């Protein structure tokens, strides 16, 4: 118990910071209000540092080192996200206040915005340390609920509100789906503890050689429901509209934070079923494997094909975000492989490493879009979003242009850059698991993706700047933190590829899979929950007791 609380120090730090931010952010003094973002950043950095100093895993966990890796990852990328987000909330309102309007805390959004940002990151951290279905459910909801509000208040346009409503409604649908899945998992095993569920499912299998149907249905519903968070295919419809409607910095946030939570939750959920089936004894049970296979193939294909026809940069990046989820699902299908498998075979390690790569590369591209503004004919500023806005960016604004080029080529997976080192393990783990057709689909999709990523890069690098832009020209009034964050991301895309091996070792360590079947310790024969089989469903428990 004490150990569990000790492992929650990063979350406790974030919670305290969020409380402080909520009070400081509504201060009548501008200088005090402005310190909100700095306080949030310091809290986040402190949480990351605390997470590195991990007190050691609890005894009954299958992934002993998963939580600290994820916590440090989201804290690190979170600081960069905060740099991009800084200056976004209340921009118009603060300008009005500077012109003499009386400051009214009720109308300001700054405090909530930063606090919700911290709460959402706290949700991801809690997901990574989840040991129980109830915990996992609450943590996933804590990740998502603040993001709905962040989208809705990210700008004063109708579009943001529409995006927020769309995001909320589909999010509620996804939550209902995975909640029903959790209920079935509990019904099939009689426990909400993930480790106990795993043991019970493994023991049931010893008797009958088949997975309990109720548990399978529960896991499938849970996978589809959590698929909303990662924008996987049946639940991907919201992505393009929400990503376009939200302000660019918030879109960058949506593309990384809920996705990380979703993948970590999927890893934890599928662990309860286990990668111990199939001819090689290293894949998921056939129904789940088939569904995941189809979801992975559909997700990358839909994402890449639709990204090709978009004319808005944010929509291109939204569909590419769907496609990247599809790539990472390959790692989930491949699974962690046999005990002590090398990194190249471990699909879970590949996912964890790719999350880092994707977070950095994607943030670079969004930082560029967040730094650019377009003055429309009516005089109002709006975000640069058209793909033509990138034309000749390397000539007119070399720094932003080159950040865009590096990020786009990195997302494409060009060899010397970080994206290549991220994608390679996904390929090798798929091949190692014998999923050759899926790896072929992955390869074809990477080729399709080259079209639109190279278009983004070539527009910025090779084309001449647009001399007579539609409406007004581009301006760059956005807070300087965005450019700085973009610069760090671009530097990381180049620099981290040199450091790829140490990082890969970290991800490999985080994905150390230690499944143990300990009959008699976690689930003693006397306490073994009774499992509802088909004929037991119609009879009360007393009549169907297991020997």
């Amino acid at each position, binding site marked *: 118990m004490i150990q569990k609380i000790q492992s929650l120090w990063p979350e406790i730090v974030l919670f305290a910071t969020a409380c402080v931010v909520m009070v400081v952010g509504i201060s009548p003094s501008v200088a005090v209000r402005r310190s909100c973002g700095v306080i949030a950043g310091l809290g986040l950095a402190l949480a990351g540092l605390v997470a590195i100093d991990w007190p050691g895993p609890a005894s009954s966990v299958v992934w002993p080192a998963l939580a600290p890796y994820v916590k440090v990852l989201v804290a690190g990328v979170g600081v960069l996200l905060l740099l991009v987000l800084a200056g976004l909330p209340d921009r118009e309102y603060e300008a009005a206040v500077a012109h003499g309007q009386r400051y009214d805390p009720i109308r300001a959004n700054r405090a909530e915005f930063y606090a919700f940002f911290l709460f959402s990151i706290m949700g991801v951290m809690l997901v990574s340390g989840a040991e129980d279905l*109830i915990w996992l459910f609450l943590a996933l909801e804590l990740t998502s609920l603040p993001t709905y509000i962040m989208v809705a208040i990210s700008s004063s346009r109708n579009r943001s509100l529409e995006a927020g409503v769309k995001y909320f409604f589909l999010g509620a649908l996804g939550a209902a789906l995975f909640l029903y899945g959790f*209920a079935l998992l509990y019904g099939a095993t009689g426990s909400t503890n993930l480790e106990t569920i795993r043991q019970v499912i493994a023991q049931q299998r010893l008797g009958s050689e088949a997975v309990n149907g109720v548990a399978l249905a529960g896991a499938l519903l849970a996978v589809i429901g959590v698929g909303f968070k990662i924008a996987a295919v049946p639940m991907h419809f919201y992505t393009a509209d929400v990503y376009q409607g939200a302000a660019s910095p918030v879109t960058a946030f949506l593309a990384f934070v809920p996705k990380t939570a979703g993948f970590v939750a999927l890893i934890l959920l599928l662990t309860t079923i286990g990668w111990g089936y199939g001819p090689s004894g290293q894949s998921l049970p056939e129904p789940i494997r088939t569904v995941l296979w189809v979801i992975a193939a559909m997700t990358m294909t839909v994402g890449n094909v639709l990204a090709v026809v978009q004319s808005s940069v944010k*929509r291109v990046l939204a569909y590419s975000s769907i496609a990247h989820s599809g790539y990472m699902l390959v790692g989930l299908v491949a699974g962690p492989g046999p005990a002590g498998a090398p990194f190249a075979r471990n699909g879970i390690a590949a996912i964890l490493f790719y999350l880092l790569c994707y977070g950095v590369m994607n943030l670079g591209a969004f930082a560029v879009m967040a730094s650019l503004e377009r003055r429309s004919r009516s005089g109002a500023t709006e975000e640069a979003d058209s793909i033509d806005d990138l034309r000749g960016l390397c000539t007119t604004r070399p720094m932003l242009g080159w950040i865009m080029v590096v990020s786009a080529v990195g997302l494409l997976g060009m060899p010397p850059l970080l994206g290549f080192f991220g994608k390679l393990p996904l390929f090798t783990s798929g091949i190692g698991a014998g999923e050759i057709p899926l790896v072929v689909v992955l390869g074809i999709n990477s080729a399709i993706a080259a079209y639109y990523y190279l278009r983004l890069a070539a527009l910025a690098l090779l084309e001449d700047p647009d001399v007579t832009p539609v409406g007004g020209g581009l301006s760059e009034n956005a807070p300087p933190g965005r450019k700085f964050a973009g610069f760090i991301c671009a530097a990381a895309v180049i620099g981290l590829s040199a450091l790829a091996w140490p990082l890969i070792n970290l991800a490999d360590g985080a994905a150390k899979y230690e499944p143990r079947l300990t009959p008699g310790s976690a689930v003693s024969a006397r306490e073994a929950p009774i499992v509802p089989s088909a004929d037991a469903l119609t009879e009360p428990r007393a009549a169907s007791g297991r020997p």
Partner: protein
Amino acid sequence: MSAILAQADYPALMSAPTLFHYLVVSAFMFGLGLVGFLTRRNLIIMFLCTELMFQAAGLALVAFSRFHLNHTGETFVIFVLTVAAAEAAMALALVVLLFRRKETLDAERWEEMRG
């Protein structure tokens, strides 16, 4: 008439509600919510449909909890109710904001973004 019915023998399946009955009701509620969400266009009705799905899961949890004779499922339901309340507050806030901007709750009328 009703007195005669009350004294008649019910079929064996109906004599006492079992786990099966609860699960059927729960699955029906869940399906109803899902179909309603996908076919209705009024935002409030759509939200009520997701609530229906949440409560379907809650019913299944309570039934399973009784079946396994432990309290874990019931504990889970308390948390589900809390989250559902938070979502309801958020949904109403968003819907009120939407209604102030465009005097309609029809999801079809909110189609500013296409692609």
